């Protein structure tokens, strides 16, 4: 595939008009599904992602249960209609790998020891893809986990940095991903800057790598605020005080 115009023009503007350190527009909505314990819908550029969380619930099969802590299981799946050529449905090498790295990322933040013998199941459905779906999926799933009331050290945020025409570009779009020279998706715990996911495709020089990592982490902190806003908007009007119920429940029994 050859592109008629270069990925960066003379003013270092990208083909979709973004600056090199500019993110695509991101919108997140928490709690969109009724049946799941927690859920989130995310639009990131042309990416559309739905994430649902179930649990903690009894882990199946039983021999996979851990008597000391919960399992965090994730399934990343691309819808058949998410890409322009129909994607053959079902797990493939790529989605099995992404599922694995995302579950490992969440395993780091979830307080698993609070729920022994259970599993927390995260489902990520890519409805429409435009480069960076693993970052988008992970970012959406973090909001869904919080919406499900799962105790966590922090939300997890993810963002990629790429290289096109020898220049580092934040959050590569479709053409930049396909024709660029490198791609570095990173997921971090924003508060501590712990890296919980990092994969690299292509070649960076050591300096470029360090700079790309920094760009990704800084962008993650911006997205982190969008995640928190999504949760705050959903639960905005909670004002009344919580009440102590134990006594009332006991009097209920006596009345009966």
């Amino acid at each position, binding site marked *: 595939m050859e592109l008629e115009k270069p990925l960066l023009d003379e003013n270092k503007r990208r083909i979709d008009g973004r600056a090199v350190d500019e993110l695509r527009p991101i919108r997140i909505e928490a709690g969109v599904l009724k049946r799941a314990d927690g859920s989130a819908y995310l639009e990131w550029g042309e990416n559309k992602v739905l994430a649902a969380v179930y649990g903690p619930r009894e882990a199946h099969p039983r021999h996979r249960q851990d008597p000391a802590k919960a399992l965090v299981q994730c399934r990343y799946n691309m819808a058949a209609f998410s890409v322009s050529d129909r994607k053959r449905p079902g797990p493939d090498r790529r989605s099995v790998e992404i599922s694995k790295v995302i579950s490992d990322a969440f395993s780091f933040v979830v307080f698993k020891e609070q729920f022994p013998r259970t599993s927390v199941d995260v489902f990520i459905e890519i409805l429409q893809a435009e480069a960076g779906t693993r970052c988008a999926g992970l970012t959406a799933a973090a909001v869904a986990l919080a919406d499900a*009331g799962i105790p966590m050290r922090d939300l997890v945020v993810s963002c990629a940095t790429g290289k096109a025409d020898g220049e580092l570009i934040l959050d590569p779009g479709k053409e930049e991903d396909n024709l660029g020279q490198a791609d570095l998706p990173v997921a971090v715990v924003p508060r501590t800057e712990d890296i919980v996911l990092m994969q690299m495709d292509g070649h960076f020089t050591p300096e470029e790598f360090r700079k790309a990592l920094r760009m990704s982490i800084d962008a993650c902190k911006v997205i982190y605020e969008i995640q928190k806003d999504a949760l705050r908007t959903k639960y905005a009007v909670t004002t009344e005080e*919580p009440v102590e*119920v134990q006594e009332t429940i006991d009097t*209920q029994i006596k009345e009966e």
Partner: protein
Amino acid sequence: MVEETVKRELVVPGDLLDAPGLKPGVGTFSEGGKIYAAMLGIRTERAGYINIVPLGGRYIPRPGDAVIGKIVDIGPSHWLLEINSPYPAPLHTNEVPWRVEYGDTARYLDVEDVCLIKVLSVDETKRVQLTMKEHGLRKLSGGQIVEISHSKVPRVIGKKGSMISLIKGFTKCRMFVGQNGRIWIDGEVDDIINAIQAIKKIEDEAQVLGLTESVASMLEEIYGPSRVE
């Protein structure tokens, strides 16, 4: 009961809780001498601890909780109950008010029966034990069960049981709210429907201020003001 402070603040996981002199309580964790929120919820302070009251999540049994459970399996000396939590909960024959012969469990409680029970103990690996030996605990027959999120149980009960007695007063239904979010209602069919409607309203509008008043006016529209006690 210690009065809770009035400050209401919504927190999300990872939020720093500015709490000079307070200890980390439920739903929080400390790292490097600072306290952070571990889950989505409302920040509260009481008795020197900072706690997060969760806004969602699954029901995790605690000792002393009164819950409504459904029997899913029977053993020769125990029943296994489903109590809307991630953990199956056995009820041993020693913990029922009857003298049950070994292997004779099905004569007393059968699969699909629904019981009002208490959580006797929960150990560190979250193994649950139930009891039916306390006064008032029994098999529930007749009526209907509605399920809500366990985090909204306090709203359905209201301050000092104001909400639940309001609904009971209007509908003349017998009701019981379990801490696992299951509510048992028994009465006339129309009254049950109205009570369920009121509960659904509470669940949908759990965050709204002055909820007791709006539920009262909703029930007044149906029954007229005369039924207020």
